[in-house]
């Protein structure tokens, strides 16, 4: 059963990614990419990495793609480009509905039929604890380096984004 | 901005950026709303409780009559022109002694907003408003009132006034026969 779900999710992710690449409407592309990311997160969950799955959703689908969408919505103020699948209605909204339904169904299925309960469970199960230990003991140095880099990046962004002195004075 | 801060300073007598003031300003309203929750609502439960409007309340429109019992309306169209929702329509006409009157006069009460501009505009005090406000129906056609439905057998708010006694066109009295008029001139009375 887990194998079947895996393949379903895999194909979903593939199709969604393909559609994402071929869409000319950026918002549609984002929607398909979110679908793909969600399918990927479910695959992670299926493979025994719930923490990674959750972060996939929270960070990629929930934050990065939202920022993409934010920018697109701010910029894409021209009238909607011509729908690429200018054909019958289902051609346009069929794929997204289908993929969405598949994902929701898989989510429900995965939640209900507990991943740890039966067959097909992967041999290695990465619980949040395992993950945390790995991150902060074995890879502590790497994490520190990355976090410093992020910190520098944040400081840099703050500096670049700061209004010039003169303007600050005016604002005050 | 600075003035605003001054106002705050005067009112609170302390630093306007005080956290205490902010907290108080956030929490106090909760108390106010909670207190209100336990007060009796001021709503009239309309169909059961009715209120008596004042005599000059602006509701259903009527057409009044002059002291002699004639229709006051001269179909001058001023009410329909004043009406902001175009609910008044009429057709003026003339009777055998030259009196101008409305052949038909119609108010669509399903459109009327009871603003009173028609009564304000009426130069002959024909159109007046009454306090009868319970006035609704499900069939819009039944809300269309004709002259026969609108006319009342009374002069309404100014019972003495008769437009034709002042207009000087010889309908109520013969031409030149009103009290503030000289006798009529005609082409022959001008002859030497």
């Amino acid at each position: 059963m887990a194998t079947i779900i895996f393949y379903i999710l895999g194909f979903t992710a593939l199709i969604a990614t393909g559609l994402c690449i071929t869409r000319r409407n950026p918002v549609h592309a984002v929607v398909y990419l979110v679908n793909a990311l969600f399918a990927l997160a479910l695959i992670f969950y299926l493979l025994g990495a719930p923490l990674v799955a959750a972060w996939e959703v929270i960070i990629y689908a929930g934050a990065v793609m939202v920022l993409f969408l934010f920018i697109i919505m701010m910029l894409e103020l021209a009238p909607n480009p011509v729908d690429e699948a200018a054909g019958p209605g289902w051609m346009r909204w069929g794929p997204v509905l289908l993929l969405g339904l598949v994902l929701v169904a898989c989510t429900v299925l995965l939640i209900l039929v507990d991943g740890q309960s039966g067959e097909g469970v992967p041999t290695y199960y990465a619980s949040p604890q395992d993950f945390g230990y790995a991150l902060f003991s074995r890879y502590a140095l790497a994490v520190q380096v990355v976090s410093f880099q992020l910190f520098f990046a944040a400081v840099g962004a703050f500096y670049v984004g700061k209004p010039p002195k003169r303007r600050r004075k005016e604002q005050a | 901005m600075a003035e605003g801060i001054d106002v705050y300073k005067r009112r609170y007598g302390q630093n306007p950026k005080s956290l205490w003031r902010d907290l108080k300003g956030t929490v106090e309203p909760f108390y106010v709303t909670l207190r209100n929750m336990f007060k009796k609502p001021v709503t009239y439960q309309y169909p059961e409780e009715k209120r008596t409007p004042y005599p000059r309340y602006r509701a259903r429109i009527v057409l009044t009559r002059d002291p002699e019992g004639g229709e006051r309306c001269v179909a001058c169209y001023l009410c329909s022109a004043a009406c902001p929702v175009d609910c008044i329509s009429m057709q003026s006409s003339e009777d055998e002694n030259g009196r101008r009157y409305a052949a038909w006069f119609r108010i669509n009460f399903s459109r009327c907003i009871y603003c009173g501009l028609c009564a304000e505009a009426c130069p002959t005090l024909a159109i007046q408003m009454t306090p009868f406000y319970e006035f609704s129906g499900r069939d819009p056609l039944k809300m269309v009132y004709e002259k026969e439905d609108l006319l009342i057998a009374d002069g309404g708010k100014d019972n003495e006034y008769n437009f034709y006694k002042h207009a000087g066109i010889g309908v109520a009295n013969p031409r030149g026969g009103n009290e503030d008029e000289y006798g009529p001139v005609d082409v022959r009375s001008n002859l030497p």
Partner: protein
Amino acid sequence: MPILTIDNQQIEVLKGTNVLEAAKGLGIVIPHFCYHEALGAVGACRLCAMNFVEGPVKGIQMACMIEAKDEMVITTTDQASQEMRARVIEWLMMYHPHDCPVCDEGGECQLQDMTIAGGHDIRRYGGKKRTYSNQDLGPFICHEMNRCIQCYRCVRTYQDYCGGTDFGVLGTNQRVYFGRFRDGRLESPFSGNIVDACPTGVFTDRTFRYRTRYWDIEEAPSVCPHCSLGCAVIPGGRFRELQRVRGGVNKQTNGFFICDRARFGGGYGNHPERPRVPRVDGAQTTWPEALRALRKRITDLVARHGPGAVAFLGSPRASLEANYLLDSWAASLGSRRIAFDSHWQHDRSARVAAGKLGPRAASLEDIRCSDFILMIGVDPLNEAPMLALAVRQAVRRGVRLAVIDPRPVTLPCAAAHLPLAPEALPDVLEALAGGDIRRLGRREAVLLEGILEQLRAAERPVLIGGPDLLGAAGIERLLDTARLLASEHRPCKVMTVLAGPNSFGCGVLARQGPDFEAILNGMLAGEIKALVCLESDPMTGSSDPARTGMALGKLELLAALDYLPTAAAHHAHLFLPTTAVPESAGVYVNNEGRMLLFSSAMDPGTPISVSGGGDHPPRTFLPATPGSEPRPAWATLGHLQGRRLSLRDIRQAIEMEHPNFAGLSSLTTGGEGKRIADISPPPETAPEIPFPHSEGEGTLRLYAMEDFAGSGELAGYASALAPLRPTPFVMLGALDAKQRSLSDGQQVRLRSELGGVGVALRVVPDLPAGIALVPRLRGTALESYVPGRGHYDCQILSEDEEKT
């Protein structure tokens, strides 16, 4: 050109402009009553006071009476002149009655506006008011003297401008009375203009009495369809009914005024029998059904008998767009059988005028400014009334006017009248062009010699001719004459009165096509199986009703698009309703080739007063407006050809196909219109068709003539004009009457090829011998006497002779 300063703004104006006009040019509108652009200034109302600070005159002056001069500095906003205006308004309002609610002028009353503008809102005068008795001024004008403010505009309009004699002013101190000597209809055919001229409600339109307020009327600038002059009018409708027509302003055509036929003859669109629903074989049907049937029948006929089996008849009262689409429909079917006027003489005349008039066309404004006028074969008051008024304005300036016409041409001004028999008119034209003058009688020759002398001496002469007596050949000769008389320094302009409002446009579209006589022959020969009539009735222009009737009877398909209950509309196998002029938009090309736009003032539909039964609108909610089926003819014709065109598309197509209509699509309503570009080279001359002359023993040559209110196709359906229609009469010269021992006013019997009719006799002193005249009066026995078809042989007998 003087430059003056008004309220600190400088303006340069033409020499002779008065200060009031100059201020108007700056957008400063100062109240005034007596001044009117057409009537001039008299300084009677004392309202246009301005303060002249610098310049040749000083102090408070009446601006309309002062000519603009250089270095004038004028203020209108200072306290003194403002106060003066306010006081004058207050004096004017002192006796004014308190009857605005029952006054028809209310809402468009200049006095109301000026009172408000002058800031006068409370009457301080508490004494008695002066009153007047009113007069019955007939079916068109209402009189309410109490409202008078003594601006004298009515008298100046009626007497001075329009030449009416039966209305005037009489007064002692404050009892000035404007009226007639006794009750009765105002006799001038321009009497309605005092309604427009009166700034308050003294004279109001009786046909419009108590009908509508100004603010409820849907108005749009339009063009009068009653004659070919193209006067600007403003029809106004309400409750789907034409309520009134008032004069529009077009300085090139009518100026400011219109005739009573235009003003009171607008009711044809509200005729109670107007067909409003499409009909197929006499049964009412829906639009898609009727259109499908028409298209199918015509394709069937074309398939069976070839494209020549379908003929088309356009109309001089249909818009240029509709006529053009009819033409293009015929062309797309492959049929060249299209005529634009059922009256072939009028049709030919229009083609000649359209082809040859060119830059010598005179507008009414040219006539007003001319210095010698020769009218030949034209009866303006009956054929084109505003022409008479234009001529009067010239005559008022001292211009000489000569009339050569057998008919007793009545004009509102003095004229030298030379009554010549119609047969002599071609000789006169010859003579004008330099031919032999001695072919005419001695007396006539002397008179004509005088006319010719004046014509040669004049600097801006205008020749005016009409098609009814001259015919196409005569019109052509008149145009040639004008060309001969004109030189580089001396323009000689011509005006040809044509039959319908769009005759000129039809003439351009018709080119070398057949006339309706040829189509009639085809119908009689059985070659033509179908006739499509666009807003036209073949019977109305036909010289031989029996022959036309027979030809129509042979048709397999008679299709009519019309808004009038004509005979053709009634008998048509297929009828499609169209919109009347006030309900539709389009272009008319008037008799001088001026393209004039008219726009739709109201929607078609059965008037509320009719659909409601009596005067009460029905108390129902209907999904559609009753009687609103009529569609503009151009829309229907476009639809029939499967083309969805807007008016703009059609106009652009016309411009493409006929380059002389250049500028058509950029015209705007309410403007002066635009002369069409000249046709070059001019089309070939129409074949000359001589007048048939036949002499019979004891017979008279009977000519039909137009009547002011009784002849026009549209006027015939306007019920308001009924009081103006005369009872049938026949006119006879004094000599002929004496020979037959008949006397004026006697009831006689008129017998001609069209049968016998009993009519009253009018003896006219200077009618040439051997000639009788009848007016064409629709709806009477004289309906079938068509002007412009030549003459009828007739006999006039007294009733007693008839019995024996």
